[in-house]
């Protein structure tokens, strides 16, 4: 398997706060890789740095062999990387369909129409609500919309920041099931989660972050049974 995303020696600061401390990890094509860790561990910061919204002081970020350390955020999707930000960040005042159109902003109009149909097939609930203002959707529907929007350009890598946040357990199950299917259809996934148990169950590999540092890494199945991971993140 080829390495799709390679992060080397990432160091990110917010002023004097050293939020990410020398983090390195890889994502292979076709994998689901999860970054887990407690609040404030630096998970979102890592994704934002890959997106170009923040800069690493050192090291490099490469996607498909190309250096993207200094990429401008708006060029990310064109490279083949979609980022579903924390808190979903759908456009509340746009309709469901307009949100999807924004997801396909860089595509040709004909491709957009087909991609929207594709999302509607996967999430029929969104189709029923296509003209609804997105801010009035339920939390679960908003998450579907955020994921559907990220799929509009068929990116090679989708980075998701806590897709389970604020959702009822049954919906969390559905969203994770969906992420698994999305991966099975060929999309590589970088999944950031506090819900370590669910994330590790669908992931191939995982990295455990503590206060900006990777403290443990390995196969997801091994992390699930690892004693210190169990204690810290799996409630036992």
């Amino acid at each position, binding site marked *: 398997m080829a390495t799709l995303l390679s992060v080397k020696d990432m160091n990110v600061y917010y002023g004097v706060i050293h939020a990410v401390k020398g983090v390195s990890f890889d994502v292979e094509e076709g994998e689901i890789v999860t970054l887990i860790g407690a609040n404030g561990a630096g998970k979102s910061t890592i994704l934002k740095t890959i997106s170009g919204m923040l800069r690493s002081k050192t090291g490099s970020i490469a996607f498909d062999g190309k250096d993207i350390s200094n990429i401008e955020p*708006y060029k990310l999707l*064109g490279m083949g990387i979609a980022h579903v*930000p924390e808190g979903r960040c759908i456009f509340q005042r746009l309709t469901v369909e307009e949100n999807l*159109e924004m997801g396909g902003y860089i595509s040709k109009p004909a491709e957009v129409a087909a991609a929207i149909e594709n999302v509607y097939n996967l999430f029929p609930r969104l189709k029923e609500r296509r003209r609804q203002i997105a801010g009035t959707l339920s939390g679960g529907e908003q998450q579907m919309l955020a994921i559907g929007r990220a799929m509009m*350009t068929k990116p090679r890598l989708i980075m998701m920041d806590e897709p389970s946040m604020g959702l009822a357990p049954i919906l969390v199950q559905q969203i994770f099931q969906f992420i698994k299917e999305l991966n099975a259809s060929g999309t590589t996934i970088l999944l950031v989660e506090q819900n370590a148990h669910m994330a590790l169950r669908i992931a191939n590999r995982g990295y455990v972050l503590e206060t900006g540092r990777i403290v443990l890494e390995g196969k997801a199945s091994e992390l699930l049974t690892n004693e210190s991971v169990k204690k810290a993140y799996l409630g036992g």
Partner: protein
Amino acid sequence: MTFLYQILNGIQIGAIYALVALGYSMVYGIVKLINFAHGDIIMLGSYAVWYFMTRLNMPWWLATIATIIFCSIVGIIIEKLAYKPLRNSARISLLITAIGVSLFLQNTVQLIFTANPKMFVTFIPSGGFSIGNRSISYTTLITIAISAAIMVALTLLVSKTKIGKAMRAVSEDNRTAQLMGINVDNTISFTFALGSGLAAVAAVLYVCSYSQIAPTMGSMLGLKAFVAAVLGGIGSIPGAMLGGLLIGVAESLTKGYISSQLADAVLFGILIIVLLVKPTGFFGRGDREKV
């Protein structure tokens, strides 16, 4: 009949306020800046159309197009030079910069053309239709018709086109908009160009009715349009349109039935009442931040 006449006059000047208010509102929506230099774009547009017609002998339609292009470019340049470097600074720095830009434009024009007003000879034929014992001028009708057409076109642009949707996405959440592949800088430039282009049209319509051009003319016009934008709910496009028309009609009725001197007092009275009673205006959203 007099009443109808006053209303039509009010709609005429109100349509001009509305065109200008749209610029305030769109720019506020996208960069959260009250662009106090926006009124001065009307002044620049007025000088531009006058210069193009009287000095360069352009026909009126070419002069109008050139004025729109000129103002749009000035709008883009102002954003790039003055506001963009401050995009992540405190709101107050932006506000002060906007006032600085306004003074800069006024003084530059004064330096070039002196403070003495210029006279603009309208290119719209005089005369009009008579209703009862009053006559409605062609200027009034054309101003209203053109403004209405522009507002319809703008509404369609913002609601239906790709760039319009991108504008709305950027004004709601520019970080997420970037992740969609939207070039935020270009979208902001486009918004400034659009707002300034509307101000240019307002300028041409204004000088056709009022004929006097002076370096400070943009201040009062801009201020009234700003009141209109606040009244309608700043950031809201239909709000700016409605606010402009209401301010125009209120002004015209005050002048017609109470006193010309009181007209401005009434407008700012309206502003104060709106700010006290419903600070978000008619169509405003509750999420406004303090400026």
